[in-house]
């Protein structure tokens, strides 16, 4: 019986040692199937993430805390992008959109006005709410704001919006672009420069915007084939001037045939 106990203890010890070393030097294999998807990129993991993974596997609380902080961030983003239903009911779509954009830190211009509205000291809309009830919003400048898919609910109702600047918005992605079709009857200028999450699949949805005259697409790292995208966009929106990408990329190296090969 003693020998049995010894065997059990010994094998247990060996297992613990093996597991610990695996934790430190690799990712835990029994809870991982990453190699199934991307073995071409040898997993080079920094020491920090390795330690974190070790802690993660040992102490549930760490995992809990990390997840918690992430969901807190998501929650605050959701709150900022909430639908301004109350304002909308009392003062109409335009004022609601204005309040929302100013809250995020952007600016707007009403039709017939020369001045832009920006957030005042209180972080609120400074104008007379009742006065603007009937005046449509014509331009929205949401540069660099944390506007999200849900936040667009506040903008999609603006039937006379002519200019929309979404450049450098970190959360604008293909899903957001797929919602812009509601502005198809009015939108003339759109800027998406520096939206790191936008890809060609999002740009493909812009064909809904019949009135679009100017489209800014500087600095979009996620577009796999800028030249080709540019050609195809011009094909579906012949009246629109596209800035930021051009077909020189196609001419440079990616000949159309290679592209075909890539996509087959």
């Amino acid at each position, binding site marked *: 019986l003693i020998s049995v106990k010894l065997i059990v203890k010994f094998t247990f010890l060996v297992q613990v040692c093996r597991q610990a070393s695996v934790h430190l030097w690799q990712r835990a294999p029994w809870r*991982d199937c990453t190699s199934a*998807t991307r073995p071409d990129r040898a997993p080079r993991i920094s020491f920090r993430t390795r330690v974190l993974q070790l802690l*993660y596997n040992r102490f*549930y609380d760490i995992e809990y805390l990390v997840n918690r902080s992430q969901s807190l961030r998501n929650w605050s983003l959701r709150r900022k992008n909430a639908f301004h239903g109350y304002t909308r009911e009392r003062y109409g779509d335009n004022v609601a959109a204005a309040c929302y954009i100013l809250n995020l830190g952007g600016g707007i211009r009403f039709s017939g006005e020369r001045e832009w509205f920006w957030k005042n000291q209180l972080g609120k809309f400074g104008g007379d709410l009742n006065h603007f009830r009937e005046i449509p919003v014509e331009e929205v400048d949401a540069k660099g704001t944390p506007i999200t898919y849900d936040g667009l609910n506040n903008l999609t109702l603006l039937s006379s919006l002519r200019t929309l600047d979404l450049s450098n918005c970190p959360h604008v992605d293909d899903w957001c672009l797929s919602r812009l079709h509601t502005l198809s009857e009015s939108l003339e200028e759109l800027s998406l420069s520096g939206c790191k999450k936008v890809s060609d699949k999002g740009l*493909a*949805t812009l064909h809904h915007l019949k009135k679009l005259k100017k489209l800014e697409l500087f600095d979009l790292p996620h577009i796999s*084939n800028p030249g080709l*995208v540019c050609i195809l966009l011009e094909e579906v929106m012949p009246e629109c001037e596209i800035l930021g990408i051009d077909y020189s990329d196609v001419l440079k190296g990616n000949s159309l045939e290679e592209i075909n090969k890539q*996509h087959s």
Partner: protein
Amino acid sequence: MAAWRRTAFRLLTACLFRRNPVSLGRCARGFTSSKALRKGNDFFKDLESEMKKFHEKLVTALPGSDWTPIHRNLNLPPERADIVIVGGGVMGWAIAYWLKKKERIRDGVRVVVVERDPTYTQASTVLSVGGIRQQFSMPENIHMSLFSCYFLRNINEYLSVMNEDPIDVQFNHAGYLFLASENGAQVMEENYHIQRREGASVVLLSPEQLKKKFPWINTEGVALASYGLENEGWFDPWILLNAFRKKAISMGVYQCFGDVTGFKTSSREMVTASGEKVDFKRIRHVIVQMPNSTEYQPVECALVVNAAGAWSGNVAQMAGIGDDSRDDILSMPVPVEPRKRYVYVFHSPEGPGLDMPFLIDNSGAYARREGLGGNYLGGQSPTEDGEPEVSNLEVNYDFFTENVWPNLANRIPSFQNLKVKSAWAGYYDYNTFDQNGILGIHPLVNNLYFATGFSGHGIQQAPAVGRAIAELILDGNFQTLDLTNLGFKRLFVGEKMLERNIV
């Protein structure tokens, strides 16, 4: 499309071989070349059988635990589990994920997913076209697909794993375009009203509007079109499957590669209020046969989920469902069978561009864009008499030239000039009764749950179905989306839940 499947296949096999465990038996074989160690060889052989005996002793000494100091075969499933999911396609993994997500305490339920084919060569999940739409006629289907869209939009909140890149399912927001002839126009309009009521973003287009929006289309024979503006398109099913799998494994789900060959059941006779005798069955063990060996492992379990896709009819049979010799409900088979569907990849240099939606012609043919380089996918469901036989996944190219191409070229004249580049076939998990999913518990085998029969719209419902089944199991009823109508009852009562928009 073909390329990703090929690489994925290669990667998976590579991964598997790497993970092959080094068993004691293999060590012993390594020594045989040396004469001096012959004796040692015997020793090792004995050791293995001794270890086996020792293990058995241990099991009797420690009932209720499957802890063991020696792992004989790392791929064996655990001996005990709470829930065994048969089939590791997108449905199986989605259910596993939601079970783990909904469990109240960590490791509260032990879930095992049993998949027989680690390379997924036949699973419909990886062979599908990956389309998602809300243009259905049944509110349940519309809501499931709407939820799936929500899920895919926030996929990184649900499925991201620490230290991994964010997930990108390659969602193409192209929308579906359904065309209807004179006869179908009225039904289309009714469907449109249902879809609008349930919150889908769809518009109806007259032939003139259609021509204006898509100049490349031939509107001859089209009386009405319906076009999805949001939340419709296609995505990469392989990425979704892997994301579910990775997340579920990271949450503690056991993955096991083996074939489920049978169940050990017990039965109990009960009497209904009207004095009728009913036989209730319960599955006690799931028998899992290991690949390429005679080894098998019975897994003792409390619940079984049948998510075996096109083969779920067979799995049900193993539990005695569809037994002709009986005269009760158990004699009724589960009406799910494999139906072969071809998908063709073709290149058309002058084909439609960025605005090409997922087009469903009134003839039944469909086509969608694949990437930006002028490649397209297309196909069509055969007629009921023309169903191909399903013993293998060979492609019939004549079907394209004779049936699909004429229809597509008629609708999109630029497709007259095209070249087929490749093709593949996959099995629809076809529900012959009413072409809709079957979700829920079997009335007479009362620990066997079903999630099957999706007949060509399963991928897009996977996140919603996973949640629904997890709710059924852990909460006892549907909590978020009421899918009672898709339960078993309709099969026995004979009440079809017909979906009009089946592609």
